[in-house]
């Protein structure tokens, strides 16, 4: 190799060495990247539906045998003779993506505080789901109204429905704290009415609650 070629070769080598070492001892590594195709992921939903029937009268207790004959259009509570029934149909919407536990949330607000206060000690309530009737604790009737949650127990798959009957009533007689038998109708004579329109006890705004089943 000529001296001139030797000098050029040495200069090239020195330059290459400088490029490799860099300013802070960094080095250039190769890399490549790729991206998967884009996919759209969508979440489902859980939707509850509820319908409520008009109240129906329910014959209870002594009724006609006690000489009590409610009017044809009477829907109100008559102590010992007639209860009032509301029927709710709760549906797990067909649009839902999951099976759900079902609950009916009862929320009654007082319509007439004086009437309610007088009637409240005698009120009774039951629910019926399928063939099972359950008494609602008297503690559900508070000074502010009627609040209770009815858990159905059965799960509802999407598109399935359940029916809950809520029956409100009062007994013909109760035994007071002195051990005396009290005629409820007589006690509440000042709070009676022939129709539900005239004498509201409380106003209910009930709702259906669905919660996704936890166990897979």
């Amino acid at each position, binding site marked *: *190799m*000529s001296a001139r070629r030797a000098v050029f070769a040495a200069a090239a080598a020195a330059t290459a060495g400088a490029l490799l070492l860099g300013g802070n001892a960094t080095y250039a*590594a*190769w*890399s*490549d*990247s*790729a*991206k*998967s*195709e*884009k*996919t*759209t*992921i*969508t*979440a*489902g*939903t*859980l939707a509850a539906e509820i319908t409520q029937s008009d109240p129906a009268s329910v014959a209870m207790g002594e009724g006609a045998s006690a000489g009590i004959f409610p009017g044809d259009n009477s829907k109100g509570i008559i102590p010992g003779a007639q209860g009032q029934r509301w029927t709710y149909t709760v549906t797990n919407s067909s649009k839902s*993506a*999951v099976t759900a536990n079902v609950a009916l949330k009862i929320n009654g607000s007082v319509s007439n505080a004086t009437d309610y206060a007088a009637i409240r000690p005698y009120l009774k309530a039951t629910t019926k789901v399928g063939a099972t009737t359950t008494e609602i604790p008297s503690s559900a009737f508070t000074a502010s109204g009627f609040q209770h949650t009815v858990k159905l127990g059965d799960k509802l798959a999407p598109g399935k429905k359940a029916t809950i009957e809520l029956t409100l009533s009062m007994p013909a007689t109760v035994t007071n704290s002195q051990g005396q038998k009290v005629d409820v109708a007589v006690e509440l004579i000042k709070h009676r009415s022939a129709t539900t329109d005239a004498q509201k006890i409380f106003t209910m705004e009930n709702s259906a609650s669905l*919660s*996704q*089943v*936890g*166990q*897979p």
Partner: protein
Amino acid sequence: MKKSTKALIAGGIGVALLVGGAGTVAFWTDEADGGDGVITAGTLDLGTPAGGGWEISHAGDGSGTATAPVAFNPESDQIVPGDILTYAQNIPVTLEGENIAAQFDGAIDVTANGADADTALAAALEKEDLAATDISGATGDLSFDNGKLTGEGTGNVEVTTTVKFPWGTEGQYNPAKLGSLNFAVDYKLTQVPGN
């Protein structure tokens, strides 16, 4: 002029010519070209990811055993709280070079479509890091271990990405109902020292 004097003068000049002004020496040289030497660089390449497959299982609230994974069709199926989604894809790789080695990695890219439910869904999902589990169809010396590729050759890195929709507390993810998001995975191959 005597011959001896001429000879002496000629020899002096010759010597002078030989030693030069600054002590240089004239010597013989020659050159010859060597054969052509072609130096080529290797390569590190990620090919186009092959079509991936989705599966879904359901763990619910974690109180029971998760269901076995089944095929999930994003175009028709929907996710709910408690679901576990997996996405499996094969990524073609090519490594060439005497001392080539590379680290395989990736990141999940989830973007909401703009609606409140979409944003809520994107925020709810737990995006687990993807796992490069194995290599298939490897040629040459290419091998794979714990995300690192070594040796020359081609193959397909098998990658599984997992996304979870948590169970949460009651009603926590209600805002995410019917939300949708765009899912993709960014794969990356980065050269690492071969020693």
